């Protein structure tokens, strides 16, 4: 067995001091040791994207990073999207456009979309499709996810 390492993860602005086994994936550390279970595991091999979180504002698959690698980094998960009782425009758009059914892939899509819309507020529809093809959804057939993210993009742009 390997020794545990003490790390600090800043998840949605809150510091978590965790003694991690180096083999624990970032996803497992966020879920099991920071109590934030909104980040979901769909495949644990980097294909489905359900576990997408923002690490230093960049969307990454949290199943493909070890928790120990995120020491001192700023992690954002779906739990941190809303501002108190006020939904993030993406959350609102997902509900208004019926962009979720079972909701399991939803946190991954929300964080992926958050990352890309923050990085490229003017992203084109085509480029958005490219990025959104990163994650798998088994319920919606994607059409409403596209509509929702486009709607949020337009709203976020208008508000900025």
């Amino acid at each position, binding site marked *: 067995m390997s020794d545990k390492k003490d790390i600090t993860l800043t998840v949605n602005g809150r510091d978590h001091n965790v003694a991690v086994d180096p083999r624990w994936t970032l996803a497992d550390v966020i879920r099991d040791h920071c109590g934030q279970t909104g980040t979901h595991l*769909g495949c644990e091999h980097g294909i489905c994207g359900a576990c997408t979180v923002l690490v230093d504002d960049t969307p990454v698959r949290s199943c493909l990073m070890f928790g120990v690698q995120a020491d001192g980094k700023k992690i954002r998960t779906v739990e941190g999207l809303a501002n108190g009782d006020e939904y993030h425009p993406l959350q609102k758009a997902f*509900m*208004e456009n*019926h962009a*979720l059914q079972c*909701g*399991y892939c939803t*946190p991954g899509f929300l964080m992926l979309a958050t990352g890309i819309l923050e990085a490229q507020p003017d992203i084109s529809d085509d480029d958005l499709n490219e990025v959104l093809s990163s994650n798998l959804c*088994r319920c919606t057939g*994607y059409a409403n996810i596209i509509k929702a993210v486009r709607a949020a993009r337009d709203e976020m742009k208008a508000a900025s």
Partner: protein
Amino acid sequence: MATATNRMLGHLGDSVERLEDPPLVTGKGRFVGDINFPDQLHMRIVRSDHAHGKIKSVDTSAAEAVPGVVAVWTTTDIDDVPPIDFREGSDPTLALFRQYALARELVRYVGDPVAAVFAEDPYTAEDAAELVTINIEPLPVLINADDDPQDFKGKATTEAAVVEQGYGDIDETFASAYKVVEVDVKVSRHTGVPMECRGAIGRYDEARDVLEMYGAAKVPHRNRDTLCRMLNRPASGMHLFEGHTGGGFGIRGELYPEDVLVCVAAMRLRRPVKWIEDRQEHLMAANHSRQQRHIIRAAVAEDGEVVGLDDELYLDQGGYIRTHGTRVANMTTGTLPGPYRFPVYRSICHFRLTNKTPAATYRSPGRCESTFVRERLMDAVAVAMDMDPIAVRRRNLISLEEMPYGRALDVLGDSVEHDPGDYAGLLDQGLAQIGWDDLQKQLAERRANGEMVGAGISMFFEKSGLGPSDGAKIFIDNSGFIEVVTGGASIGQGFETAMAQIAAEDLGTDYRRIRVVHGQTNRIDYGVGAHASRATVLTGTAVSLTAQAVRAKALDMAAELLQTTADTLTITDGVVHSKDNPTGPSLTLGEIAEALMPTSKLLGGREPYLKGEEWFHIDHQTYPYGHHIAVVKVDPDTGGVEIEKYFIAYDIGRSINPMMIEGQLVGGLAQGVGGALFEEFTYSEAGDPQAVTFADYLMPTLKETPDPEILLTEDFPSIRTPLGIKGAGEAGITGAAGAIASAIDNAIGIPGAVTETPVSPQRLKKILSEHGK
């Protein structure tokens, strides 16, 4: 009045936002992986890596020695636990083929559970599981269901059953046919693959002697009943709890070996036991589905009428028969005729075991397969008769005048009786909306310019609302908050919203003031769960009847308090008032509930509480119908297929929430496209599964999934349900493979080219090169 109505959302037919969504978009969902109990153990299954063999020995000593491991079980540790029984009760003819929670004597597929490790954390459990060594003496591996059956345990053959359905004189009809058209088509092995893998937590509450299982889905009440039978427990001491469920699609929520194991382990190890499936396990352990080969013939009259249909099919059931028994065989043979008349019919299903993952139902079981087969045949008939494919279909559709149309076929114990519907009329509407004639012209022009483009159609009828009965309870507390308790299940389809909308309609309240309970066996005695597109039809109608009863009780009590008669009153936004004088004297539902408390002096002779419980009994399933049209472009050099346009027409009878219905259709289509073009569980000769990662099991991404145009009609409400509703869960997938195959044939100009799904680029390229294209 206008203000009140505007505030009050969620009537029948409104596309309101879903009640389910807020927790799901904020990360507050409670999926089974998110639930933890103090002191819980984690279970890891050790699975067979042989497809077929005798278990000589299992050595668990090294695993047991790993620090943090509490126990390692093989079948001898649970030799008192019987094999997993059928959902609908015992069936002596199939009992031999059931699966034990841990393999006994034999392993029958790669992935068959052989041992279970219980450890303090999932990482340790997986470490220890690797150290369990299983010594297996290999036996011959049977991969194809259409190969000769083999011996099964010296007591039977792998042909577990032959399911035959039909009516009329086949031999006579074929002997006198003008033409006989035959096709031989295969549907690949693929399945639901929800985004959340399975999971289960067993917890034994010694203080109350109650065994609990979390992570239930689809049919919690049925699974409770089966577990009670298997573990010899009373229903009051066995409870299943459904949390959020990350997709169901028919495969999730059946009673699997792992569910049984966590329950037994929780009792014997006296600690909560959690099992979370990983994706590699899921792709070899959760139910597969679909794999069938049909050899089917049509006897055709000179005018294109198909006067007889004769089908023989081989259903690949995999290693064991699981909870469904022969349901897929039954539904395939019972629904194959689809929307057509076919006066003489026979289908013989060879229901056969192989050495692959056990198979069962996946969204639209039996209809998906049989629709592909039937529509391939209808295209072949069109070619053989030199008729237009639409004309051939039109010639054979059951007409409105013949409805309701019964046939001597059984679907899940119900004799098929088509709901009234205008199949040809919807076809006319669909073709008009998509501009079929112009489309044909455009495609012909493009083909003349060298493009491989084409269109295809697939017609189907669906079944939904399987009976016989379901009940619901409604309770309104003295704050006016409404709780609807059902035995339904929520698998992501919007069950809570639909039930709330139905209840709100009669209770005159905003649907957001209603809490809908589902999947909790300790809250209601009975439940049908969520399968076979029955939740809205059956449970929804029970909720509607209950809401009507509670409304009547509320108005009756209010009438006394307001010194009027109930028929002069109505409910708006949770307030009972005079129909004629909305601003006059009124009572809130909460005030009425207060008046109905057991201690209330106003109770009179009434039963206490503002509550009700009603049942709905259905005499036949409902049969919605529709068609799919696909337009595809084939790249002759790569064999790639691009879906340029897609259209779905569907008669729902009556919509509860059109937004959610369209969501079901679009989502179902994505899975249909997966089955038609991408998804397939292939096996090596030795029985090794070759698609056990998401890099090999190809589910469509956004780029491969069309955004269909949808024509949703309410022309023919079901005569089987008071609200006229029919199911919506499966129509998006049922017609997909048939329409896409037909469009590909049309695009490449080779009639009958597609005989097998998925139409991979490699398969299509081979077809093209065989035809010199």
